[in-house]
């Protein structure tokens, strides 16, 4: 992330004020979800395609308060390579806006950006028909405007839409879901504070964890499965089934957005034809 060099960082030995508010004194265990959702209730999703004019394809996605914007640039020749690659390359760059989240140091965010970029690239690679881009690379730029949990899922969903919007040939629609595990509960689409609890570095007796899965819808292929935490193998099976069934719901939304886009396009074209006649 680019840092404002002139910004005054404060004294070296300062203590973040947030420690003195009751925000940090949250329970290590979760009772009710703060936004009143049920455990298996997805946050509301808003998508819009074709939001930036300079990119080949772009999309904007909101999942509750998590907001990401993705642009896909035109394929270009791979710079500075020493051998010809038969398959095209994908380059992902994920960046956090400086105001995207609270209470994380810049070093922490930087490391996070890097590992999210790698995870994103891995999940998108199997979805794109790379053999059609011999020696070319596609740049995908992801900007996280606000992080309120499930960022990787939001970024994968949004990047999938942006790739389709840019007319990049793909095998399938790619969708992704995040779940949090806390004891016996499985929380769909956790927010940032729920994610913190589920990550559970302070949890010493119960199962906990975060699972992110990305999936190609009609091929039933998992392109990314990412889990951290502490869960029993039986729980893993349960979650993997659960997460894939929930992925189908996201796929419906994605399909709807795409159909909407085509409809608008047809209407626009119809109007144009009428005008020229």
């Amino acid at each position, binding site marked *: 992330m680019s840092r404002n060099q002139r910004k005054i960082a404060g004294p070296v030995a300062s203590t973040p004020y947030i420690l003195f508010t009751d925000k940090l004194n949250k329970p290590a265990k979760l009772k009710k979800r703060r936004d009143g959702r049920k455990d298996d209730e997805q946050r509301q999703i808003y998508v819009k395609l074709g939001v930036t004019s300079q990119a080949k394809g772009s999309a904007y996605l909101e999942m509750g308060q998590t907001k990401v914007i993705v642009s896909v640039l035109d394929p270009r020749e791979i710079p500075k390579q020493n051998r010809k690659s038969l398959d095209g390359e994908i380059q992902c760059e994920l960046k956090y806006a400086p105001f995207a989240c609270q209470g994380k140091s810049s070093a922490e965010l930087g490391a996070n950006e890097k590992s999210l970029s*790698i995870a994103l690239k*891995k999940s998108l690679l*199997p979805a794109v028909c790379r053999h059609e881009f011999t020696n070319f690379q596609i740049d995908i730029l992801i900007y996280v405007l606000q992080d309120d949990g499930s960022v990787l899922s939001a970024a994968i969903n949004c990047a999938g839409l942006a790739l389709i919007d840019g007319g990049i040939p793909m095998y399938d629609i790619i969708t992704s879901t995040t779940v949090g595990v806390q004891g016996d509960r499985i929380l769909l689409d956790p927010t940032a504070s729920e994610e913190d609890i589920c990550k559970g570095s*302070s949890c010493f007796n119960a199962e906990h964890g975060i699972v992110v899965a990305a999936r190609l819808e009609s091929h039933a292929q*998992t392109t990314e*499965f990412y889990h*951290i935490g502490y*869960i029993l*193998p039986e729980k893993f099976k349960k979650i993997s089934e659960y997460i894939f069934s929930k992925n189908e719901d996201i796929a419906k939304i994605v399909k709807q957005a795409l159909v909407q886009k085509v409809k608008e396009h047809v209407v626009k074209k119809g109007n144009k034809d009428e005008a020229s006649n």
Partner: protein
Amino acid sequence: MANILLSDAEKTFILHGVEEDFRCDGRTRRDYRPMELETGIVSHASGSARLRLANTDILVGIKTEIDVPSPYNIDKGKIEFFIDCSANATPEFEGRGGEELAQEISDTLAKSYQSGQAFDLRKLCILPGQQCWKLYVDILILECGGNLFDAVSLAVKAALFNTKIPRVTAALMDGGNVDLSLSDDPYDCNRIEINQIPILVTVCKIGDSCVVDPSAEEEQCSAASVVVGVSQRDNKSFLTNIHMCGVGSFHQETLESSVELGLSAAEKLDEELLIALKLEEERFGKYGKKEIFGFLR
């Protein structure tokens, strides 16, 4: 990882071997290659281990330093992983070549150690909010013969077993500052509890079947693999992380069966590692001098 150029015929040969459950080196799909493990070989480190898994050579050194706990976790110590891919391992690592791989391995390690149940950072705290131990885990990849994740995690676990943290005999609060006095006796020290520490197992999908401990050549034939982190607690196995590598994808059923395979391999591996470490300690005493074999001997 290490880029070995294989012809299509060679790849097909490996693929058929895996299908027949008889791999190039005579192993079945569930077999590991032989390992060599030696601990305490770096005299300047608090703990160290060297692991050689066939052609993969890993050296781990652990340094301990005193640090101030983070204001968000005042009762916890710190641990940091750093991986250096030496250019000796493969020419690909020259310059910044190994950086992405190093980042991936250290990320995976950090994530599997993240849970409080896998690695209890509270044990590294000296005075809450004031002083704690910080462990620097430096991992050197000397030779790369495939299956880096497994080898690195085993070597780190062995090095943590070997780590000796000096005992704090007194802590004085002098004004706002803390005055620690450490024991003068170099043999008077604390050890790290390693039973729950997770180990990683890579399950590599070659053709339609999955293998453990892939060699560099086999890695070249596979489009996707999954790394499973497994920690033992109360005689039960827990999954600490799952992570996919490579450009390919998994079917849901394959994913589930690979995780299962990884789990059973990890259980066995963990058991054997603990036996080997205890055996080494018994033979040479806890702090006794022993002959260091090291490298090239």
